[in-house]
């Protein structure tokens, strides 16, 4: 009997001390919940963004934020919007994260964005390129640190409008991203140059392995220039087919992200030269001391140069840290107020701003042409022309109109 009594007291003491421990630890770390694709082919981009984020956190956590550190938890959405959404919910409800971040899949991003709005949790999108995220479906709780289809289309259109071409052919992957890019470049091109005519379109199913028949059919129609709307594995297939048919020597071609080294590197010398592409970041451009230092640190940590997702991930981490510092408290609403219009140092040099009116990071667009150079065993973007964020982004009035405000 006595033994039981002592045991009960002991248990009680332990329980009381546990409860007492709770409130003492007021300085809890800031938690970021990341939902992204870490399996299957898109994992390349998901991991790259995460590496950029981790690299920035190492620097940030050395000095700390609000006397604490930033921690993160990742979830693999497997490129499935329903999985991504339930994981975002789990992160908010179980892990009680302060901020959500991710994902490569635009459908997932839009689904999580809707949830973030209901739950009033800030959500920062870092790879998805749908212009709807910060456009017509934008709201107080969603931010984007990646370029989108509007910016890509406008950049491509302003480059093409300077050329004498009028008869265009549009071809691409038959899904949201492909059509979004196609619509955007077409809309902007016609606005800049009304005489432009789209003489034909071809859309192939996502993952269509052999694009040669599509390309030969396009060449037979003899357009002045071709706009390709492809991404991921299709991009490689398209570039291979362009090379095999010698298309880029016959017709001018523009493809958003064709100049991405993640696309060009696996192709090696097999990538076609002379394809116009647009990117918001290259590890070799802009050629600034800051960018060199960033690339060097990244290569040292992960063994390969950073891609555009790493750039976005890195900026995202710094935006989160700076916004919490400015907010002065672990408060979601204050965090959002602080993040609006916030400027942080860009790893590529200079400052980079989170635009207040639409929560879209102001990113430049680099227009370039694929070219063989002796320094690398793969093609790089050359003759780069920089379009500033203001030149390619929709105006705040356009955003208001799109959102029906």
């Amino acid at each position, binding site marked *: 009997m006595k033994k039981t009594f002592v045991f009960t007291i002991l248990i009680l003491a332990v329980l009381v001390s546990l409860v007492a421990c709770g409130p003492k630890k007021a300085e809890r770390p800031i938690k970021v919940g990341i939902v992204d694709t870490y399996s299957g*082919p898109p994992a390349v981009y998901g991991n790259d963004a995460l590496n950029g984020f981790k690299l920035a956190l190492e620097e940030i956590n050395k000095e700390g934020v609000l006397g604490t550190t930033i921690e993160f938890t990742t979830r693999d959405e497997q490129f499935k919007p329903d999985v991504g959404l339930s994981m975002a919910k789990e992160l908010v409800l179980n892990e009680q994260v302060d901020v959500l971040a991710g994902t490569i899949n635009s459908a997932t991003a839009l689904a999580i964005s809707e949830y973030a709005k209901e739950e009033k949790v800030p959500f920062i999108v870092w790879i998805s390129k749908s212009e709807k995220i910060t456009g017509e479906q934008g709201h107080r709780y969603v931010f984007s640190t990646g370029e989108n289809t509007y910016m890509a289309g406008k950049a491509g259109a302003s480059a093409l409008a300077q050329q004498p071409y009028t008869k265009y052919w549009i071809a691409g992957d038959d899904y949201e991203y492909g059509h979004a890019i196609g619509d955007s470049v077409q809309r902007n091109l016609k606005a800049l140059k009304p005489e432009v005519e789209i003489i*034909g379109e*071809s859309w*192939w199913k996502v*993952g269509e392995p052999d694009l040669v*028949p599509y390309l030969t059919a396009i060449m*037979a129609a003899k357009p002045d220039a071709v706009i390709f709307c492809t991404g991921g594995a299709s991009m*490689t297939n398209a570039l291979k087919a362009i090379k*095999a048919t010698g298309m880029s020597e016959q017709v001018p071609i523009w493809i958003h992200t064709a100049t991405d080294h993640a696309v060009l590197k*696996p192709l090696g010398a097999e990538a076609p030269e002379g394809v116009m592409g647009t990117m918001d970041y290259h590890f070799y451009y802009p050629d600034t001391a800051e960018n060199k230092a960033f690339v060097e640190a990244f290569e040292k940590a992960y063994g390969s140069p950073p891609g555009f997702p790493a750039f976005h991930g890195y900026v995202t981490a710094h935006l989160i840290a700076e916004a919490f510092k400015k907010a002065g408290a672990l408060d979601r609403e204050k965090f959002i107020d602080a993040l609006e219009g916030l400027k942080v140092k860009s790893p590529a040099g200079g400052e980079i701003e989170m635009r207040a009116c639409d929560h879209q990071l102001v990113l430049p667009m680099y227009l370039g042409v694929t070219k063989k150079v002796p320094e690398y065993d793969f093609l790089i973007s050359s003759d780069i022309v920089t379009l500033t964020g203001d030149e390619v982004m929709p105006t705040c009035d356009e955003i208001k109109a799109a959102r029906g405000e």
Partner: protein
Amino acid sequence: MEFGQSFSFAALGSQFLVGLSRAMILFVVCAGLSFVLGVLRVPNVAHGALYMIGAFSAYSISTQIGGNAGFWLALILAPLVVALVSLIAERVLFCHLYQREHLMLLLFTFALSLILGDLVKLVWGATYRSIMAPAFLRGSFPIFGSAFPRYNLFLLFIGPLVAVGLWFFVNKTKMGKISRAAAVDREMVGALGINVSWVFAAAFVIGCCLAGLGGALVAPTISITLGMDHNIIIEAFLIVTIGGLGNIWGALVGSLLFGVTQSLGVLFWPQFAIVFPYATVVIVLLLRPRGLLKSVW
């Protein structure tokens, strides 16, 4: 946009050739699938995964060795790698399952395709891979006034070569004759004192070898990536079905029909080109539900 693009007969001719060359890869893959279907009665969903392994192996072999020789060796060795994988799968797993009903086999091979897919991810990772065709097969040359990739011309040679090789094997060798007989009546073949188990193993390995060859052949023209198995397996089953289950020549006819309707569809009606080959499948199955040629099932 109007239905008919303006096109010339030259464009039609070159588009037809492009379709034919695409059909050659489909044929190599489908012939293997159909052979296994015919002899073993196994609807092998994992055939696509084996095709993917073929492509990834071709990548590893050609990058290890490098240069033109790398490609040619890959073309020979990649199917052998696939043969080895399939031999292990057959001896360890399949040989216990032949008597099961088709639905079981379908589920089993589907599971196997997922396992093989993950295996590929473990060995090669999730990144895109790409290999180059030998120098003289790169680029294009003009045919009917439009560009025709050299590699596709090479495919136009390889396809018939494989077809002739298969014909020779099935009709002129003892092994081929036995497997043909086993396709018709396996009990009878067993009753004649032939070790049916090993005949089946050999037939399975040969069929899978063709998947590997298809993978190696397609490797230089596409990005080698996870998920390439799903694309091919659906098309392959459609082709085998319209050709006549288990009939290798049916696979040839089906592939040609599929490849050519696709490439011509692209020329005539580019926005809806995806529909053409599938519409063809529907029409064929409406008119001839058991396929164009005689099905062995």
